[in-house]
């Protein structure tokens, strides 16, 4: 885990294998931005609001949040709602990275102001390809508000 002060990518994902695949895919795409992996929505919110085990963290925003939808304790939708309801985090780029292709999940996420909704494919070569694209787009091509 990288130093919490320099984190640029926050990955909220309850499945360790999925998290490992995502991290490997980013690394293979030469996206070396420091990444922090949290196992559920509660930890993600603790990090973003600098509380709990992240209480000592200075309030620097990450550059990108990758959110899984189905997570224990606090799910991705709730995290997204919290982010969009917090003035300091409102403009933070959030990408949903999920297994769910349910239309209702897509609609709800967009209604809450998500920046992208990516359905993780089962086929590994496609996952690597898509995560590489995602990393390029949000961390290299895209210009977020400073």
């Amino acid at each position, binding site marked *: 885990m990288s130093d919490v002060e320099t984190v640029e990518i926050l990955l909220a994902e309850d*499945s360790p*294998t*999925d998290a490992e*695949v995502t991290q*490997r895919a980013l690394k293979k795409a030469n996206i070396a931005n420091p990444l922090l992996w949290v196992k559920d929505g509660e930890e993600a919110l603790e990090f973003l609001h600098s509380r709990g085990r992240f209480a000592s963290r200075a309030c620097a925003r990450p550059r990108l949040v990758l959110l899984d*939808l*189905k997570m224990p304790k606090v799910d991705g939708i709730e995290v997204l709602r919290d982010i969009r309801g917090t003035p300091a985090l409102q403009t933070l780029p959030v990408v949903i990275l*999920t*297994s*769910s*292709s*349910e239309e209702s999940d897509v609609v709800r996420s967009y209604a809450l102001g998500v920046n992208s909704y990516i359905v*993780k*494919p*089962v*086929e*590994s*070569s496609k*996952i*690597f390809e898509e995560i590489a694209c995602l990393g390029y787009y949000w961390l290299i091509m895209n210009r977020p508000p400073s």
Partner: protein
Amino acid sequence: MTALADKLMPRWRIEDAITAAFLGALIIMCMVTALAWYSVTQFLNSSRWVEHTHIVLGTIEHANALSEEALAAGQNYAITGNPASIGERDRAISELRSNLQKLGEITADNPLQQTRVAILNSQAIACIELMSAVVKARQTDGFEAAKKLVSESRLSALEIPFRDSIAAMSDEEHVLLSHRLLADESSQRRLVAACGTLLVVVVLTVGMGLIRLRRELRVRQSLAEELGRKTLELETSNKELASFSYSVSHDLRSPLRAIDSFALMLEEDYAQKLDGEGRRYIRVVRDGAQRMGRLIDDLLAFSRMGRAPINAVSIDPRAGAERALKEVLVAHTGAPPELLIHRLPAARGDAALLHHVWVNLIDNAVKYSSKTTGPRIEIGGSVQGSEVVYFVKDNGAGFDMRYVDKLFRVFQRLHGSEEFPGSGVGLAIVQRVISRHGGRVWGQSEPDHGAKFFFTLPRAEIA
């Protein structure tokens, strides 16, 4: 489910049963009413006869009294010579005549009494004649001559049979009266019995009808409750199914992704440490995981087709078929088939759902003709009554019509996945979408002579 349907649609519909019961009750009530009516007329008839007999008896007594009056008046004149007695006698005689005539009329129904009335008449005439002779003798020859005539003519000999006849008639009428009173009484009893029966029948019919109706209503109510319960159960199980497919999409895909991704990572990082067989094993693992991923995706799509609401509008089938063709051909790696799209009549349907129908049918046509030399796909349609029949035809592998029933079932395939890849869900999706549009799907084929799949949709309204 069939038991419920049976209960909901009994062989004897309740409407028919009610109609039959009411008709039966009506017939019974008509019959009993006719019987009662008959009893009433009988009763009235017998009452009339009793009254008639009373009148006859009265007339007979009156005749008797009049004859006595006439005799008394005649004798009085013979003794006193008082002319007033003549007037009295004449009045009594004239009344007696009309009285006897009336008696003749009112006993017309009784031949015995008729003969008696005739005898009575002649006896009365004889008496009257004698009396006239007596009166004449008194007027011309005085009291003694009249007295002599009375004693000589034996007036009493004429009077006694007259009285006897009167008595006989009276006796006869009394006998008749007693018979008629008896008849009257029995018809009264019959009337009461008939009215009682009528009442009982009406009460029974109405009561039984009421009980039957109440029972039927109770049955219907319990059926409605059962239906409500079943509907609720169905809704619950539908919701469970929805949440099940949601779980499938999340929970099953994650471990599959792990299998495939880590196999890939193994291949990437350790390929040089494995021999050919080891690398083949990894490929088998990845193939299996990927195939299962596609199965899950198809199954989820199938389940979504059953739940998605249908938004039926007038659609352009040619645009739909061409869009699907483009989508299918992009992914197709073999030789492109020859295409022939006929004019397609407009229909009503949900374009998004029908897209899956076109994609699956065209994908099948492309897939199963891919091993044929000169693959050819033909798409057409025609209006037939209130619906449009479309078809997608290929010149590929085809299938044996013996297994046509299996074609549209989930996971049922007529070709091995080595020969032609697939999950066995495509035609099930087609069937589900079309049946939700109220249409039908069927296939025609012969092995190695291509297949032709048809589906129907409601025809678009002509503006």
